[in-house]
């Protein structure tokens, strides 16, 4: 089994290779390109699972110490950047999930992207190239043994997210008759927003990495997490804090951007503009998981020098996580777009992961990351299937009826759906599994992982015995769990129950197998995924990856005992929320004012508008930035710089015109051509003396001699 470790570099390289092959060679062959992409990720999955197996069999030695392959890359002066690969229990846990979920999404995409698209659409191949690159980025991030390779992969994902979120803005204007300009614009704006927002975090992360390197001279995880190094970092004071805390907070800044934590969460809902498989990819297996992974991987930096309960950097993580968990869930209550509800759900669930990490428990956070990846991929792919069913229904209706007018039908709007459980049973049942997992009903995956975070918080609260941070975190988490259940109840009631509220919904039909089979496979994982760390099965994940940070001597992890009270409260909250959400919206009729809107009034409007955070950012950051850019533009193009440039240009032109005249008249025609003409004329005149008659020459000679003689006589 050890053999599989040698193949670790191939895990990110295979999708990367698939990307290169598609872009360079096969981009004209859609079917082939998608098969190459799927083949790449499938091989990656196989190797990854081999590595996971090898890690399990390798026992504690491999799981804690890890396997390493350093590759010297960039010699700079006396030091060498090495970008290597490493596998320990934590990496192996990620390797179990990431490539597999990616593969499911790839297979699903093959069905999804084909529908409604002309067969020769060149974007089809391009889509598969991009998602391959995306997967390569995430896999590279997971197997990296240092922050440099991690950051490179991180940025690769940033680029891919930009390309994929803005995917519908690539339009072939030669072949497409109907182009939805508004959609193009929205896709562009969303792509930019995602790129720029995550960039804010990336800059912080990069600053953190640079600081870390300047202090320790290394970016290798194993080296920076050595107790001596951490101690050294604690002793350096930076801005009144130990340097290690500052670095940790900078890294957390990167994670806030990438994992869409408050206040940089705004890009994630807009990222729904991308194709649905991309949403699933971003939300489940890659992108947002990267931020959580980063915090988990650098957890020793957050704790170093403090008690776990009082580490300031860690407390920030917990607070931001709790705020995000609660706040994301509440917004989810008031959204109509099926994908946006899931997007806010993702934000909220990422908050839970951060909460878990913020409480110092690596396993709780990562366990939730893993289970969430499965059921959130499932939910997104399921919503994509629903949307596809709706679009097909709409096409059918538009074909059969006479009015071809492009009405403002929105296939994502839950208000126009309804009763789909009969039309799309193969989507419905997996979707229900995903919902139960997200809400946290026993024995679905989400129950175990969410419960572990809440149990951790409650345990710390009991230990401290006061209404301190862990209590508020627990409260936010439990309330969040209730609200999560409420909005999911609302969603499934609106989508699958009741009567069809639009002709499209009554004509919707099931999606093809390539879409529904991945749903079913993921549903199985949503059902059983939680057993990986279920307390009654011996908390396997705890033993498997709990001790990867032991060597740093600051992170200690012990499984928190299962608490029936905590589990009971959260399950009760979840059941209550799910059932009431379902009951309230079960009989919702088209055109009615929503029940929540009737009861909550202005609060509902506030939630629907996402607390006006976007508007606030627009007012505070974007408008001033645009204004400033306008001024700079005017300064540059209208008022100062361009006129100056033009003036200099004009002066040059006039001067050169003068030179040109001087050159043509004086130099060319007078001097150069004049000389030539003079000699030409002289030669013309003189050649007539060459008569060819010998007697003439002799005459000249004689006369000359006589003249010379005469001169000689005269002057001598």
């Amino acid at each position, binding site marked *: 089994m050890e053999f599989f470790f040698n193949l670790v570099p191939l895990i990110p390289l295979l999708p990367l290779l698939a990307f290169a092959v598609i872009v360079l060679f096969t981009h004209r062959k859609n079917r082939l390109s998608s098969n190459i992409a799927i083949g790449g990720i499938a091989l990656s999955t196989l190797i990854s699972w081999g590595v996971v197996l090898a890690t399990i069999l390798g026992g504690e030695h491999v799981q804690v110490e890890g396997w390493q392959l350093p590759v010297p890359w960039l010699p700079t002066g006396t030091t060498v950047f090495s970008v290597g690969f490493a596998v320990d229990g934590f990496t192996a846990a990620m390797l179990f999930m990431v490539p597999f979920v990616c593969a499911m999404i790839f297979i699903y995409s093959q069905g999804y992207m084909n529908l409604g698209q002309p067969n020769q659409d060149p974007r089809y191949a391009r889509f598969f190239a991009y998602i391959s690159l995306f997967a390569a980025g995430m896999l590279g991030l997971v197997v990296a043994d240092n922050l440099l390779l991690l950051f490179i992969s991180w940025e690769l994902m940033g680029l891919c997210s930009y390309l994929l979120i803005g995917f519908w803005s690539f339009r072939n204007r030669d072949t497409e008759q109907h182009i939805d300009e508004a959609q193009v614009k929205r896709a562009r704006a969303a792509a930019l927003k995602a790129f720029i927002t995550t960039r804010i975090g990336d800059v912080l992360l990069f600053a953190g990495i640079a600081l870390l390197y300047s202090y320790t001279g290394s970016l290798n995880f194993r080296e920076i997490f050595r107790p001596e190094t951490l101690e050294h970092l604690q002793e350096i004071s930076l801005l009144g804090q130990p340097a290690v805390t500052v670095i940790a907070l900078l890294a957390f800044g990167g994670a806030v951007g990438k994992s869409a934590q408050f206040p940089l969460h705004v890009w994630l809902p807009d990222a729904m503009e991308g194709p649905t498989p991309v949403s699933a990819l971003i939300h489940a297996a890659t992108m947002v998981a990267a931020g959580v992974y980063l915090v988990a991987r650098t957890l020793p930096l957050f704790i170093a020098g403090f008690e776990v309960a009082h580490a300031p950097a860690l407390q920030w993580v917990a607070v931001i996580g709790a705020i995000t968990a609660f706040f994301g869930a509440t917004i989810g209550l008031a959204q109509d777009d099926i994908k946006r509800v899931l997007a806010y759900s993702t934000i909220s669930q990422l908050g839970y992961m951060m909460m878990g990490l913020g409480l110092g428990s690596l396993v709780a956070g990562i366990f939730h990351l893993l289970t969430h990846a499965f059921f959130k991929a499932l939910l997104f792919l399921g919503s994509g299937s629903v949307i596809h069913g709706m679009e097909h229904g709409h096409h059918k209706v538009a074909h059969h009826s006479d009015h071809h007018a492009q009405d403002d039908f929105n296939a994502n709007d839950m208000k126009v759906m309804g009763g789909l459980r009969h039309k799309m049973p193969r989507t419905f049942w997996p979707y229900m599994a995903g919902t139960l997992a997200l809400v946290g009903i026993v024995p679905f995956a989400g129950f175990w992982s969410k419960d572990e975070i809440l149990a951790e918080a409650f345990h710390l609260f009991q230990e401290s015995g006061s209404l301190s941070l862990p209590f508020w975190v627990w409260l936010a988490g439990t309330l969040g769990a209730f609200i999560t259940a409420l909005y999911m109840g609302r969603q499934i009631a609106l989508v699958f129950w009741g009567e069809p509220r639009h002709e499209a919904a009554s004509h919707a039909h099931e999606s093809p197998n390539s879409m529904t089979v991945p749903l079913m496979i993921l549903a199985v994982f949503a059902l059983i995924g939680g057993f990986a760390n279920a307390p009654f099965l011996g908390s396997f994940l705890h033993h498997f990856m709990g001790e990867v940070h032991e060597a740093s001597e600051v992170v200690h992890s012990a499984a928190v005992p299962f608490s029936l009270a905590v589990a009971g409260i959260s399950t009760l909250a979840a059941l209550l929320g799910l059932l009431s959400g379902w009951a309230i919206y079960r009989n919702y009729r088209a055109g009615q004012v929503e029940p929540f809107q009737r009861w909550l009034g202005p609060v509902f409007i506030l939630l629907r508008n996402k607390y006006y955070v976007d508007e606030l950012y627009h007012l505070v950051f974007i408008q001033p930035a645009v204004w400033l850019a306008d001024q700079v533009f005017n300064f540059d193009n209208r008022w100062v710089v361009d006129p100056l440039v033009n003036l200099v240009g004009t002066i040059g032109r006039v001067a050169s015109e003068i030179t040109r005249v001087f050159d043509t008249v004086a130099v060319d025609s007078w001097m150069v051509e004049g000389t030539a003409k003079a000699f030409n004329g002289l030669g013309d005149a003189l050649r*007539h*003396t060459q*008569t*060819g*008659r010998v007697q003439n020459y*002799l005459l000249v000679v*004689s006369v000359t001699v006589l003249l010379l003689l005469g001169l000689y006589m005269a002057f001598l």
Partner: protein
Amino acid sequence: MIPLHWWLIVAAALFCIGLYGVLSRKNAIGVLMGIELMLNAVNVNLVAFWRYITPQVLTGQIFAIFVITVAAAEAAVGLAIIIAAYRRRDTVIVDELDIMRW
């Protein structure tokens, strides 16, 4: 004894007649004959100077003999050229033999 300058005058006159012939004759053979006259005028001079200035050594006479030899050779070559020119151009008029002109 006839004074030296008489000889010189005769030689000069002979030279001038030769020169005139060379310059004015149209026929190439006439030109050639003019050249002979000029050479012989020089011979007269050489012999006269020998007789009056250095009668002890034979330089003047020897020189004259050389000139006569060269003149003979020159006449032979000249006539050959004239015949060749005549064969080619059907003329011995020097004015018409002007292919070396500009």
